[in-house]
Each structure stands twice: as structure tokens, then as C-alpha cells.
């Protein structure tokens, strides 16, 4: 009974603040809560890869190539005798760096452009809309592939290319948000009181617009994991000896008849990461953007 009491109290207090209400809604969704915890764990493992991993990602032991699980190598080794567990952990670092970095870059480019278009409207908006069209003409994956083919792969370049091809989504979202909010009463009131425009845009309107942007950002993470791992799977993305889940599948493909683990482990990692991040994204959407059902 006491727990029910406590929850009721939380609700009352949280109704005064949007973020408290959002946290309450998020907490109620058990799937999202568990996924969120795992997603954070993956990020921590990725950040502390060099401390957690028992071996280096490139440490070879050719006498132990394609060995099964043992006390020395908990999940076995790959064709060059590299510890699979360590490579999966370092793979989390590469995958997460790209999966977080690319949408972040897209947001940094796209949101200001969208804000300007949505806020000022008129000819600025028209030009921005045409700009959106130009950049959606060629789908993100194809554009990124072209850029990688021309300029080469690697972690930083993947972040750059998947980022510059992701900005349109953020731009459209920010534009729609500001277009919807700019004629609200609180904005008109702020204008009437002589608040400078930049202050209205960032201090008054941004807090109302930031929720959907966070949701969009988290929902972009699984898609970016797919794309980055896909390019590495094709041999175009992350290069040896760096570990990446997509590349590990590619490596394991040839040794399938000897060791299942080499290909299976990165597949499990990809599935775990994409599932947790997409459930987290869904939970955040329901919590932060209640109008979107």
C-alpha cells in the first residue's frame, strides 16, 4: 500500500513540470525502462572499452586461431586468434561512436536550418524546402555510399558522411516545430514585451520543441547502426585492424563451418543494440510527445 501512496505523491508533484511527467510516463513502460538501462550499459561498455576488454582489439595469437570458448578466451577467438569478447567490446565502441556521432552531426547541421526556415518563413522557408528536396532526392544510404567510395571509409569518415546525409530529417522536424509554435500566445506575449528574437527562439520556444528532437535523435540511432555495420559488412566502412560488428560478420562468414561464434556474436550484439535503442526511442516518444499516441 505504501508504494501506491508514494506513486500518487509523485504524480501530483510532477504535474507541475513537463520533465517530471515525462519521466513518470517513461518509468511506467517496463520494456522501455529495461531497454534504456541496457542501452546505457552498452554506452558505458563502449566508452570504457579499453578498461573492460581482457585483450586488445588487435592482439593476435595465431596458435589459438578459431579456438572455442575457454578460460583464456571466454567466447573463443577469430581466424587470427584475436579474442572475440574483446573485439565485440571494442566493436561496441566503434558502432556507438558512429551511431551517436552521425545523428549528432545531422542535428547540429539540420536543427538551426530548420529553426531559421520555420521561424522566419517566406522566401527563406521556400529556399530551405527546396534544399530539403535536393538532399532527399538521393536516399541517405546511396549518398553515403557514393561519398565513401569517393573519399574512403573509416570511423571518422563514416560519422561525417552518415551525418551530412542525416541532417534533412532534423531540419524538417525543427521547421515543423517552430512553424507550429511561432504564433502561440506565449510567443506573441514575449514579442510584445520586447524580448529579443534570439532569446525567444532559444529560451522561450526551444524547451517546447526539444522533446520531439530528442525522440528523433534516439530513433535515428538503430538506423545508423544498421547503415554503418552494413558498409563495414560490404568491406567499405571500418578498416582492419579496428573492430566493428559489421566487419566481424564479414570476417566470420568464411569460417562458418569451423566456428559459428565468430559470426554469431556480432549478430547478437547488433540485435541487442538496435532492439534496446529502438524500444528506448519508442518509450521516449510516448513519454515526451504524448500527442503522437
Amino acid at each position, binding site marked *: 500500500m505504501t508504494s501506491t501512496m508514494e506513486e500518487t505523491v509523485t504524480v501530483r508533484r510532477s504535474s507541475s513540470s513537463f520533465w517530471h511527467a515525462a519521466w513518470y510516463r517513461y518509468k511506467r513502460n517496463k520494456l522501455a525502462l529495461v531497454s534504456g538501462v541496457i542501452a546505457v550499459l552498452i554506452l558505458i561498455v563502449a566508452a570504457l572499452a579499453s578498461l573492460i576488454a581482457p585483450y586488445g582489439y588487435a592482439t593476435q595469437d595465431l596458435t589459438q586461431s578459431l579456438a572455442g570458448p575457454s578460460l583464456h578466451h571466454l567466447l573463443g577467438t577469430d581466424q587470427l586468434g584475436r579474442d572475440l569478447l574483446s573485439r565485440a567490446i571494442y566493436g561496441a565502441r566503434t558502432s556507438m561512436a558512429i551511431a551517436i556521432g552521425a545523428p549528432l552531426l545531422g542535428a547540429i547541421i539540420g536543427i538551426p536550418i530548420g529553426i531559421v526556415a520555420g521561424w522566419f518563413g517566406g522566401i527563406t522557408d521556400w529556399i530551405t524546402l527546396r534544399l530539403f*528536396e535536393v538532399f*532527399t532526392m538521393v536516399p541517405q544510404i546511396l549518398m553515403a555510399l557514393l561519398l565513401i*567510395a569517393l573519399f574512403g571509409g573509416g570511423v571518422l569518415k563514416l560519422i561525417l558522411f552518415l551525418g551530412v546525409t542525416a541532417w534533412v530529417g532534423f531540419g524538417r522536424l525543427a521547421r515543423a516545430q517552430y512553424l507550429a509554435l511561432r504564433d502561440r500566445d506565449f510567443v506573441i506575449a514575449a514579442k510584445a514585451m520586447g524580448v529579443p528574437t534570439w532569446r525567444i527562439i532559444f529560451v522561450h520556444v526551444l524547451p517546447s520543441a526539444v522533446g520531439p528532437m530528442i525522440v528523433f535523435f534516439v530513433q535515428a540511432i538503430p538506423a545508423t547502426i544498421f547503415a554503418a*555495420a552494413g558498409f563495414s559488412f560490404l568491406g567499405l566502412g571500418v578498416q582492419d585492424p579496428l573492430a566493428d560488428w559489421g566487419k566481424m*560478420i564479414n570476417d566470420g562468414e568464411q569460417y562458418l*563451418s569451423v566456428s559459428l561464434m565468430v559470426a554469431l556474436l556480432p549478430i547478437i550484439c547488433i540485435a541487442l543494440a*538496435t532492439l534496446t535503442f529502438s524500444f528506448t526511442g519508442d518509450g521516449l516518444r510516448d513519454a515526451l510527445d504524448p500527442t503522437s499516441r
Partner: protein
Amino acid sequence: MIAYLAQRFLTLLLVMLVTTMLIFGLMHAVPGGPFDQTQQPLPGPAMANIMHKYGLDEPIWRQYLNWLWALLHGDFGIPFEQPTMSVTGLIAKAWPITLIVGGITIAISYLGGLAMGLLAALKHNTWIDWVLTSAVSTAGVALPNYVVGFLLISVFSVKLGWLPAGGWGQPEDLILPVIAFSLYPMALMARFTRASTLEVTYADYVRMGRARGLSERRITLRYILRTALIPLITIMGPNIPNILTGSIFIEATFALPGLGSYFTTASLHRDYPLILALVLIVAVLWGTCYILSDVAYTLVDPRVRLEGLSR
């Protein structure tokens, strides 16, 4: 309506002009060219001859205008990698493969997803709903299509030897790529259908229909499904060109010689005419589908008015 369509297509033309210019500039901005060879560099005069033959020694703006002029005469040029063919011929050979795989994928995933979503919504909160929703959406979202393809190959081709691992020519070649390709759009379709069906299932006019004693079938098909389909047009419409131009990952995994794999090789070999032609195809399909889905929206939902059309 005609004026509106004309205006939309004119803007599309303008946008495509800018897009091709950007791609053109981008391809030429990188040092090196399609005929650079690291193994055996060509002697200077031979190189100059090749460059001259393909017009690559002219200034960029001139090359772009040449390309545009040829394009207006229906000539996409000659692919550098296969000089005995024309780009048009190459695409005519590759696209049917992508279209067949994509067409079957769309049919299976859209109809299958629709049926599953509808079933889940009609059996809302029963175990059928639970299994369909969680199993399908999880399976479709968890793994990228190339990983699903890889798993399918390892089980059905390598372990069991039932189906070919890749290639093109016999009907069996279609099965695994289509399954791998369909999973994600099917999950998406099922999810959106369920959501939009649930929204109307409890609407007043549906309850009214029941009160009037209409058959459950009539209510489902005429009252619920018709309204539930409307939001799906804008969500699933833009996915169609995506599927019909092929997935580079699926085509690479199953060694299908379709548009996607040509895009990959053309990009890697800097085959300018082929890249531009493929970009153009994708862009035209993409733009047209956007316009059509906007128009379709007004046709099924009379409340929606197109921007610039209403007055």
C-alpha cells in the same frame, strides 16, 4: 489540379538539375579519375587520349553541359567499365532484376503486413494481438536485412542445401532475397496498420454501424479498413521507390546483378555516366512518388487540401 501538378513537376525538374550538378561537382572534386591505375599506370599520351575520348579533359561546367545535352537526346553515355555497352542498355539489363525482387517484396510485405496489422487490431488485447505485435515488430526491427539474409544463407544454403546462396537465373534464387528484404517493410506495415485500425475501431460511426445491425464483415471492410488505410499512404508510399531501386546490401549479400550492385561498383570505380544515370532514376522515382502520395492523400481524404491549390 493540372496546374498544381505542373507546378510540382516543374519544381521537381529544378531540384533535379541542382541535384545532378551537386553530384557532378562532387565526383570531380576528388583528385584522381576513373582511369587511374595503381598497378600499371598508363603512359601519358594514352591517358590523354582516353581522357579526350570521354571528354574528361574539358572544364567541368563544359562536361556537365555536354552530359545534359546528350541526356536531352536520350543518351546516358557509355559506362567506363563496360565500354562495349551503353548505360541505357546496362540499366535495361539490371533494372528488371531489381524490379522483380522489389515488386514481389512490396506485394508480400504490404499485403502480409496489412493482414497481420488488421488481425492484431481486431483481436486487440488477445494473445493473437500480442504474438503478432511483439514477434513481427521485434523480428523486423532487430536485425538489418543483410544480416537476416546472411542468416538465411547459412541455414538454408550452407547447412541444409535447400536453396541457392545467391545469383540470378532460376526462380529459386528469388526466395531468400525476398524473405530478407520483406521482413522490415512487413513489420512497419503491420505496426502502422494496427495503430491506425485501433484508432478507428472505437470510433462512434463504427459503433453506430454495429447498432444498425450491419454485418461484422461490412463494418471491417467498409467502415474500419477504408479509414485506417488513409494514413498508411503517406507512411508507406515513399517506401516504394526505396524498394524498387533495390537495396545495395541485399543485392550484395545475394550477388544479385541489379541496380543496387551496379550503384556500388559504379561508385567504387568512379564510373561517372553510370552513377549519374542511376542517381537520376532514383531521383525521378522518388520525386514522382512523393507528388503522387500527396495527390492520393487528397483523393481518399476530402478534408485535405493541397498547399497552393486551395483558394
